[in-house]
């Protein structure tokens, strides 16, 4: 009954604190929506973003035609023709376009001649008849791709890769054509074949996820669990504020005078804020499922078992509440506790992979990340949402979170006793 009374008392205190309510429920929802929107573009890889790319066609022949054709139906590149390379450079430099492809004059002719020379050399080496009249040393074709300095590295690599692939494809076709030409020299009856090279090797891509094929980490999938944990750890703000206020105002003294044991009071507080954390979690998940799609973002997919997701949420809630209690007990003033608490949560979230995924961090930070409870929670959620992990897989992180909670609570009790029993 004492625990229930404390839970009810905490409930009354919270609902009468509009600032605390906003901090616990409204701010996290706003934060997760804003962060998911802000990080949507960076999270979309090259496959999902359509770039406007200038093309300066000084060749006007089959090579440039092949490039245009290759990008015609591309979901990622929208070619915009530009006549002048100087203007193209200026437009890219100004940031209006992300890149410009400049195909120099005579590119097709030079490539054809180089291909012919190559085949001729091969034929000669094998003692086959070959026309060796064109033995001029031709310079390499200087095809240029100019990038906006602000372009993301992966976009740059993807565009370069695509161009190189197109050129290589054209070159291969022309090598085969030239081979057929020289082999059929003088034989009008031989019919040349147009080879479809794409059918030789099929590269099938997939994900190591049984339930959701093609389901990857996107902005919503990262931000919803990440900022949910941030919000849950921010429970320390109302929790520590409330505890220190009670200490300063004297109501905690009365509770110490009333009860022989502080266990019901602490348990009641812990249980209440634990439940608040779970409500936060459910609200944030609901936002991910129902609100994000309305904003044009992906829907949050809960790949794993609901029971395991709840277990992880409970573990994170325990860790967050334990940390809040420790901060409240350790610091003597609300100002100290709230300042330290807020900054520490921001740091723990940053190294825990809340702001950006851990795998994009430098190696040192990735190692440090392993010490953040938020990293344990986020890893578990990713394991469940993306990889449909089993209990065995998430258990180490669950144990770490529960252990963290027990250690922080144990330390709180120790500090509290050391300071109150004088």
């Amino acid at each position, binding site marked *: 009954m*004492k625990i229930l*009374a404390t839970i*009810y*008392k905490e409930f*009354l205190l919270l609902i009468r604190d509009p600032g605390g309510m906003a901090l616990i429920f409204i701010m996290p929802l706003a934060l997760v929506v804003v962060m998911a929107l802000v990080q949507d573009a960076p999270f979309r890889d090259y496959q999902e973003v359509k770039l406007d790319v200038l093309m300066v066609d000084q060749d006007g022949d089959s090579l440039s035609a092949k490039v245009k054709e290759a990008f015609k139906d591309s979901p990622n590149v929208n070619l915009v023709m530009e006549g002048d390379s100087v203007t193209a450079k200026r437009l890219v430099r100004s940031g209006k376009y992300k890149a410009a492809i400049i195909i120099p004059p005579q590119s097709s002719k030079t490539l054809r001649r180089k291909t012919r020379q190559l085949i001729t050399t091969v034929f000669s080496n094998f003692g086959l008849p070959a026309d060796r009249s064109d033995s001029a040393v031709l310079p390499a074709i200087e095809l240029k791709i100019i990038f906006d300095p602000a372009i993301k590295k992966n976009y740059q690599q993807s565009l370069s890769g695509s161009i190189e692939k197109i050129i290589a494809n054209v070159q291969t076709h022309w090598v085969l054509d030239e081979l057929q030409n020289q082999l059929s020299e003088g034989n009008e009856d031989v019919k040349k074949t147009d080879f479809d090279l794409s059918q030789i090797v099929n590269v099938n891509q997939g994900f190591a996820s049984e339930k959701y094929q093609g389901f990857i980490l996107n902005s919503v999938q990262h931000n919803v669990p990440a900022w949910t944990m941030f919000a849950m750890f921010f429970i320390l703000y109302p929790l520590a504020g409330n505890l220190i206020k009670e200490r300063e*105002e004297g109501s905690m003294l009365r*509770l110490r005078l009333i009860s*022989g044991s502080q266990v019901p009071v602490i348990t009641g507080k812990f249980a209440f804020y634990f439940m608040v954390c779970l409500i936060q979690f459910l609200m944030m998940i609901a936002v991910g499922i129902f609100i994000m799609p309305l904003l044009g973002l992906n829907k949050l997919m809960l790949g794993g078992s609901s029971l395991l997701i709840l277990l992880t949420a409970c573990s994170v809630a325990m860790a967050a509440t334990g940390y809040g209690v420790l901060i409240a007990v350790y610091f003597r003033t609300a100002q100290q506790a709230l300042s330290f608490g807020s900054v520490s949560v921001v740091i723990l979230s940053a190294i825990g992979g809340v702001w950006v995924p851990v795998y994009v961090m430098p190696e040192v930070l990735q190692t440090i990340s392993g010490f953040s409870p938020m990293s344990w929670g986020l890893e578990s959620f990713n394991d469940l949402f993306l990889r449909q992990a089993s209990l065995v897989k998430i258990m180490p992180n669950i144990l770490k979170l529960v252990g963290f909670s027990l250690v922080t609570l144990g330390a709180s009790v120790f500090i509290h006793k050391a300071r109150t029993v*004088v």
Partner: protein
Amino acid sequence: MSTRVVHLEHLTKQYIQSSKPAVTSLTLEIPEGSVFGLLGPNGAGKSTTVMILCGLMRPDAGAVSVMGEDMLQKGALLRKKIGVAPQEIALFPSLTAYENLFYFGRMYGLPSELIRSQIEKYLHVFGLSEKAKKHVHTFSGGMKRRLNLIAALLHQPKLVILDEPTAGVDVQSRNLILDFLVDLKTQGTTIIYSSHVLEEAERICSHLSILDEGRLITTGTRASVMDAHPECRNLEQIFLKLTGKNIRD
């Protein structure tokens, strides 16, 4: 012959940061059914004595017996029989008067019906019935002080410890509180009354003791203390005579 509710024997306590003891070899007996004034200037050791009596602080030496039980051994059990109204307004400002009292009643482990009847009774006695549903942060200093006192009485304690129960209240509220304490004494409750207001102590205390610099200066019934200093017209003069006129920090 009255039995003693509290017996302190050679109580000594020195704080870690302090160069001298807060309480030195304090021996004191508080009879059952008395209003016992615990008086002294600032730094006399009153608060330390009260803290030890409530079981919130351990003495360096000495024994504390409350209702025949050792406080150092059975503090948790004994605290349920003691009502303490600390000098601070130990209430939740954003809860109503009723919610505060109901919560404290629950924490005393009282059943709902008893809590309700006790709240009703004491709110009526202290003139707060109409304010039961008002949030405490809207209360005046006097109303808060009365509510603070009620919170210490809900569980019908045999021993009530009051630390400056009339601090910051108006004359009417003070009068009401003092009258109530006298009435409470007649019902057999022992009251330890720590205060700087000697006029109040003289009015309601049946017994008193004066501490100074952690030592007991005098103790006994009010009449015996007054009789021992016939040249003094009131308790304040006795107090100044025994503790001196130097300002204490």
